[in-house]
């Protein structure tokens, strides 16, 4: 059953009966607790009491949590309602997504004052992100008006308050501001006429929600659509007037786990940790029946039977994910020829072989095959979601590869698209033109791998690719993708510094910054923007320092970094710069670029910080290499 109005999260495995006993045992045992264990505990469908207990347990384990599975995040919660239930639930749900969240909540009704006061505890907390969760009451939206003008005035006043909060938070250095929409009331004012009455409370609330969308666009803020959540579970269920009067709880407590999970999905996406690839089983997941036994004529797919339509809907859902850049892969226990047969010959298949970036059909265990898929695509296993109708396969993959998202889809294929969608694995906070191309790029990469096998000599191979590299300063058109790369790239990233879209925009006009966005096309397709470099003027007058240098792993070993450096040196010479400094700051994921500067001919100056190194290049002594690509450089208006 898929009943979100019950407050359950059906795509997660049910909580174990001994959940509290497990927590107690964790606390009682001495020594470090693997962060991974907490992620696994949180990955269950936990009700509010269990979320509260888990959060309490994590508090007691402070200082003993060990391992790279959790990364810290400081969040300010500016809610004009009781947060005592929401805050622990958000912290516990975020564990599910690899985030250990610390929250700060201003005293009731003090949010605006703390935002505006430079000496406030909110400012001192150092939040990276802030959630603005107003209520209609707190924004003065309390009654319906017979005249539209009075309603419009109330909307304008509410919008002004929200704008002031967003600008105040951003002015206070909180990079990411999340605006929560206002759920519409369940009960009518004038009845069926409400939809047409501009002064109705519902119309005012809808108008403020629209204003929030505009605010997100104009201020590079992020939307959290609580109104959509209330509609999902039913507004009459969502609102609990008694609870509001009694305890200023803004919605029925049964939905706190759903609310917290959806919010944690947004936090995960903001951290660039959203999944990138959907791995599909074949038999009884992409079609009904077993291709090896039932043959092409025996499997159920397409119009004509309820089952066939359900499987077609799954395929179409997968294609809708591919449309926004999610990579599709296949992992099936089958003979490869059998597994591919429907893709090649069945007329009712929506998925074609060209849609699948990596196709693995063999008799090896699925956990190993999934690891292989991650390796071929050059992404972490935490970026994979595995869809399989077989509960045993799901359980095994969960056990072997706990970072892989494995929705507990049950046995009714009609529900699989909803399970994937509500699971929020591929949550995003923005879509760029490059997203649409990404799946195609991964597929083209697989072709390149095949091409290389037949060519042999690597330089010949690179030349055969007909690469064209375009380098330009940051601009408005590329900004969303630039910010996305800055926030998502982990492996080829020298400093792992994260910047918001607003900050990226500011750098564009900052005379102390020299910025580069790098694009690459080749004969297999357009890779889009694949590298971002930010240089800043150093304290030393004739030097620049690389603040950020990152590159998508899709184009590793294509000598793009050499083309980038050649361009930087040319710009440096033009600006009278003699030295380029570069830092390597280690993270759990960027070991591959430890010797990046060394390979490019920089001289090592020595260690900095926690295991980092500083390097220098004398511009005068640099000779540009002969590169296997054409290079088009667009010079900035001012550097």
């Amino acid at each position, binding site marked *: 059953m898929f009943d979100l109005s019950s407050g359950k999260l059906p795509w997660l495995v049910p909580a174990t009966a001994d959940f*509290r006993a497990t927590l107690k045992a964790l606390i009682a045992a001495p020594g470090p607790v693997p962060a991974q264990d907490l992620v696994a505990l949180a990955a269950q469908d936990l009700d509010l009491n269990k979320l509260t207990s888990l959060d309490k347990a994590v508090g007691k384990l402070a200082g003993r949590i060990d391992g790279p599975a959790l990364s810290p995040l400081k969040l300010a919660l500016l809610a004009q309602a009781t947060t005592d*239930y929401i805050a622990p639930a958000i912290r516990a749900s975020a564990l599910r997504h690899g985030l250990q969240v610390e929250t700060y909540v201003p005293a009731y009704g003090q949010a605006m004052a703390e935002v505006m006061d430079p000496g406030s505890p909110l400012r001192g907390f150092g939040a990276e992100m802030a959630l603005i969760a107003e209520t209609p009451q707190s924004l003065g939206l309390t009654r319906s008006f017979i005249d539209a003008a009075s309603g419009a005035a109330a909307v304008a006043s509410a919008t002004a308050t929200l704008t002031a909060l967003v600008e105040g938070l951003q002015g206070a250095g909180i990079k990411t501001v999340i605006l929560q929409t206002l759920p519409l009331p369940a009960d009518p004012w004038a009845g069926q006429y409400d939809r047409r009455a501009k002064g109705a409370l519902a119309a005012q609330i809808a108008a403020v929600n629209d204003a929030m969308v505009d605010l997100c666009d104009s201020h590079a803020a992020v939307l959290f659509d609580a109104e959509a959540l209330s509609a999902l579970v039913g507004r009459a269920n969502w609102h609990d007037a008694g609870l509001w009067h009694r*305890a200023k709880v803004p919605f029925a407590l049964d939905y706190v786990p759903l609310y917290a999970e959806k919010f944690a999905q947004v936090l995960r996406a903001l951290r660039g940790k959203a999944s990138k690839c959907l791995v599909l089983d074949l038999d009884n997941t992409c079609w009904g029946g077993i291709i090896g036994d039932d043959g092409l004529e025996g499997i159920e797919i397409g119009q004509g039977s309820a089952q066939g339509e359900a499987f077609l809907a799954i395929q179409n859902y997968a294609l809708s994910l591919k449309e926004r850049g999610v990579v599709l892969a296949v992992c099936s226990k089958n003979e490869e020829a059998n597994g591919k047969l429907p893709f090649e010959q069945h007329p009712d298949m929506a998925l074609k072989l060209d849609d699948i970036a990596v196709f693995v059909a063999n008799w090896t265990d699925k956990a190993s095959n999934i690891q292989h898929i991650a390796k071929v695509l050059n992404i972490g296993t935490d970026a994979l979601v595995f869809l399989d109708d077989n509960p045993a396969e799901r359980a095994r993959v969960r056990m072997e590869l706990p970072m892989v998202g494995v929705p507990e889809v049950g046995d009714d294929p009609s529900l699989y698209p909803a399970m994937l969608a509500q699971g929020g694995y591929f949550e995003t906070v923005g879509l760029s033109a490059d997203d649409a191309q990404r799946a195609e790029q991964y597929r083209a990469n697989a072709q390149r791998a095949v091409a290389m096998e037949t060519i042999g000599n690597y330089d010949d191979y690179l030349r055969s690719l007909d690469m064209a590299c375009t380098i330009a300063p940051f601009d408005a058109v590329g900004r969303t993708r630039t910010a996305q790369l800055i926030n998502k790239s982990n492996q080829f990233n020298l400093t792992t510094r994260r910047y918001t879209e607003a900050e990226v925009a500011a750098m564009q006009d900052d005379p102390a910054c020299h910025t580069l966005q790098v694009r690459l096309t080749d004969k297999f397709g357009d890779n889009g923007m694949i590298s971002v470099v930010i240089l800043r003027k150093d304290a030393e007058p004739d030097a620049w320092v690389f603040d950020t240098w990152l590159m998508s792993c899709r184009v590793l070993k294509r000598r793009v970094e050499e083309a980038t450096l050649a361009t930087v040196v040319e710009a440096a010479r033009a600006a009278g710069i003699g030295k380029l400094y570069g830092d390597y700051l280690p993270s759990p994921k960027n070991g591959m670029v430890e010797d990046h500067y060394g390979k490019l001919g920089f001289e090592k100056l020595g260690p900095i910080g926690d295991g980092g190194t500083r390097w220098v290049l004398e511009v005068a002594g640099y000779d540009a290499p002969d590169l296997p690509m054409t290079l088009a450089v667009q010079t900035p208006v001012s550097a």
Partner: protein
Amino acid sequence: MDTASIKEELVDIFEDVMDADDVELTDETTANDVEEWDSLSHVRLIIAIERKYGIKFSNAEIEGLKKFGDIITLIQTKAG
């Protein structure tokens, strides 16, 4: 429903909500007697009971609850 079986079920709910074990609960127990029983956990307790028995309490009824025995009596009245 008989008092004993309601009480048994309530102890389970109580332990789950309060995240506490082996709490001594008698008809006369009040929030003052249990450390974890504060105004916040009380709201969660009420919601958990409502869900368990498929009933809904009014604020007036909730305000009338002074001790553990009151909760049992109210459940019997509402759930029949």
